[in-house]
């Protein structure tokens, strides 16, 4: 096959770096409101019927939303194999915790309302909270650790050795990033509930959404200041080869470069749009919730999430996963990707299927448009949860 040479290797790497961002944003914006809704469940709903309203607000769509995570995992495996290998084995116990939480979630959705017992339902409600809160926190904590560099080294044959423990992940900056993640997803979940529900549930969600939007702005700003002041970045010191083989050990890297995570914003001012969107989106969400513009709140909180996720990528480019103990082994856009041919094949597959996915997902959301009201649940004929 020679078709793949139509696109240069470095162009494909950039495209796949952008697609990685799009997939993360896709996951955070769609499954994000499911996670936020799960986290909010104990706080916005007290009676059984209210809880079922909340659960059914995400009931028909969470399965499709979660596929963004499945797809993200698959796409990282296919397009950035070494990133997949290092991050999943390095964050082993954290990933296992996410998995255990995410196993509980679908089962809780399906099984909760299948028995009348109050204890039964309370147990699954708790599972839904864990299934929302734990992944939201851990994904943020992981991002916080990536920004600081992760203690892994690569042997010459590319065997991976991770030399940090689970509790080292829970350092102050990383936990702060975890809280940013929880705050933004709770804001997003609240915006969804305001849109999809009525009455008490909606008004409680509105209050929590306002609180979460404020928390998002404050925590994200603090994280940014700390990143500037206390988190040193990385810099490639050898000549940058953008089309070479994907072997991280072919370059040299300097660690502990103060302010290097902000160099891209100075060199390419348009990248400042990402953090700006993170802040402005959350502020607009705050205003929209205060003024009861429910549809707007959903859009602006999506904007905020996209901005926050993309700002991590923009800060670090071309780094994807820096190594704190062997800086040379840091994974970058230029040396952690799949082969030229695989990136091309995967791009073709994405160009065919991603538009289709967006098309039928929109159709499904359109069919399901409208508020979930108690009547649907207590008297409806659909198989509501």
């Amino acid at each position, binding site marked *: *096959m020679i078709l793949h040479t139509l696109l240069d290797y470095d162009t494909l790497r950039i495209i796949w770096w952008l697609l990685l961002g799009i997939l993360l944003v896709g996951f955070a914006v769609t499954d994000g409101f499911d996670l936020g809704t799960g986290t909010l469940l104990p706080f916005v709903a*007290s*009676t059984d*019927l209210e809880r079922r309203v909340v659960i059914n607000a995400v*009931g*028909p769509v*969470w*399965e499709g939303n979660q*596929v963004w995570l*499945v*797809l993200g*995992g*698959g*796409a*990282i*495996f*296919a*397009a950035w194999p*070494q990133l*997949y*290998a290092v*991050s*999943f*084995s390095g964050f*082993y*116990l954290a990933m*296992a915790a996410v*998995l*255990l939480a*995410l*196993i509980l979630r679908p*089962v809780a*959705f399906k099984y909760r*309302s*299948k*028995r009348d017992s109050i204890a039964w*339902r309370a147990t699954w409600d708790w599972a839904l909270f864990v299934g929302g809160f734990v992944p939201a926190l851990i994904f943020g904590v992981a991002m916080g650790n990536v920004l600081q560099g992760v203690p892994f080294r690569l042997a*010459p044959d*590319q065997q*991976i050795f991770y030399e940090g423990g689970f509790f080292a992940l829970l350092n102050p900056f990383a936990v702060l990033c975890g809280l940013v993640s929880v705050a933004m997803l709770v804001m997003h979940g609240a915006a969804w509930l305001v849109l999809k529900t009525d009455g008490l549930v909606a008004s409680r969600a509105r209050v929590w959404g306002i609180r979460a939007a404020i928390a998002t702005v404050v925590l994200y700003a603090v994280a940014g200041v700390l990143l500037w002041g206390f988190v040193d970045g990385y810099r490639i010191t050898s000549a940058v080869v953008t089309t*070479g*083989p994907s*072997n991280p*050990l*072919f370059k040299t890297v300097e660690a502990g470069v103060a302010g290097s995570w902000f160099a891209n914003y100075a060199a390419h001012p348009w990248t400042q749009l990402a953090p700006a969107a993170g802040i402005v989106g959350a502020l607009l969400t705050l205003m929209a919730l205060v003024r009861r513009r429910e549809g707007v709140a959903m859009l602006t909180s999506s904007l905020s999430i996209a901005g926050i996720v993309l700002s991590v990528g923009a800060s670090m480019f071309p780094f994807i996963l820096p190594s704190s103990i062997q800086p040379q082994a840091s994974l970058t856009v230029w040396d952690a990707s799949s*082969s030229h*041919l*695989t990136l091309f094949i*995967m791009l073709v*597959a994405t160009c065919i*299927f991603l538009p289709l*996915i967006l098309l*039928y*997902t929109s159709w*499904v959301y359109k*069919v399901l448009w409208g508020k979930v009201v108690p009547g649907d649940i*207590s008297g409806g004929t*659909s*198989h*509501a949860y």
Partner: protein
Amino acid sequence: MDLDVVGLSRLQFALTALYHFLFVPLTLGLSMLIAIMETVYVMTGRSIWRQMTKFWGVLFGINFAIGVSTGLVMEFQFGMNWSYYSHYVGDVFGAPLAIEGLMAFFLEATFVGLFFFGWDRLSKVQHLAVTWLMALGTNFSALWILIANGWMQNPIGATLNPQTMRMEVTDFGAVLANPVAQAKFVHTVSAGYVIAALFVLGIAAWYLLKGRHVELAKRSMTVAASFGLAASLSVVVLGDESGYLATEHQHMKLAAIEGMWETQPAPAAFTAFGFPDQNARETHYAIHIPWVMGLIGTRSLSNQIPGISDLVKLAEVRVRQGIVAYGALEEIRALGGRAPVPPALQARFEEHSAVLGYALLLKRYVDDPRQASDAQIRQAALDTVPQVAPLFWSFRIMVGLGMFFIVLTAVFFWLSARRRLDAYPWLLKVAVWSIPLPWIAAEAGWIVAELGRQPWAIEGVLPTAVAVSNLGIQTVLTTLIGFVVLYTVLLVVEMKLMFKAIGKGPEDELAHAPGTHSPLVGTTPAMRTAPMITAE
């Protein structure tokens, strides 16, 4: 199997995969059966078919939930526990997994919500389309997963790149058209259809025995028996061992399944019974059926099936060739990546690079395969023999059950055609007690395919012992225990819910007439009256 990190990681992968494979085949088949039932409903307009669709849909939904969550574990585990594997073959193996997400899983998971929630929001034909898209997604999903798995068994269309130290795709078409993947897809999907068919058949038989929901039960049995007969014929006739001999990599698996220690003149005999003894390299008390093995394995009377001893000799040759390739690879890597590789060195590497994996088998015994002693090389060659006894028995259990399913579904197909489904209560009892059997056959099939692949993660390319992540034993033990506990609890919960849904039976469709409301599954009258609720 030693309980070191490799052993524990294998155990965790095997347990989570076997568990995942309890739910997935059922959803594969049930999605098709549901789609068929709904099609009949839309074509005839008779509401009993809608009732059937909904009832079996509830059971589908209970299983789908666990299938989804355990599937996520499968996908993440490659990176978590098999990081060198992920690096080494991600360029090839990752693509089908990602395309599965793009093409199949999105379709399935997006429409499954609408299947349950869309009855009142969609027209008949729209809802039918949703159901078919869901079933299509489920089956496409199996296709891509088995393309990935097929490549583990028969890794074609890729070569090792010394600069990146990993396998890279050279011919994606070959990866897609892999004969092993094709055979596996048909075989595995058919097995899923059999599981679903016998599930529906058994539950419906139970209703008939109890005299409940008779109309629904009879119609369900008719669909299940005909679908199941076609599927169980397809499982056996298009069994995936048909791909074994077409590809050179699977010879050892076939010989191990047969407990065939020495090469026999063609056509080889089938060992119907016996006790394989790995150390003595013979099968005690063997009962042979002449010719049958040659026919099953090669579909011919003249092609020879090589025995284990000859294959070990071949493996030893390959280990030695692999060491040559390994030496050349090290020299290429010592050049530092950017310097040009001398053509003579490149040629020396390429001559034996296809069997480089055999040198990696030595990594269990020595860091640098070039330093291996003759004894270690002989041991590495011996290591290429999988555990014969479990393969031998699993295969016979699977085949025996497969034959039984053909008979069972044929009998019910005939009874259904004669309109005498309830004529023989003992047959209905057989159908009820047969519900678990196809699961046993499917799990046995997984053991044959994957235990038979050992000691390789990627047959002939990457040994399992090298593929594993460098984790601590306690770390892996922690997650292993976590998964076992959680999965056990979930299995108990899901069985209870299934029994409850089956005991409750289908909802009364008359209640769905406009203006009336039916009670929801699990909603008591108190819960339907909002002001009365004080659940907290």
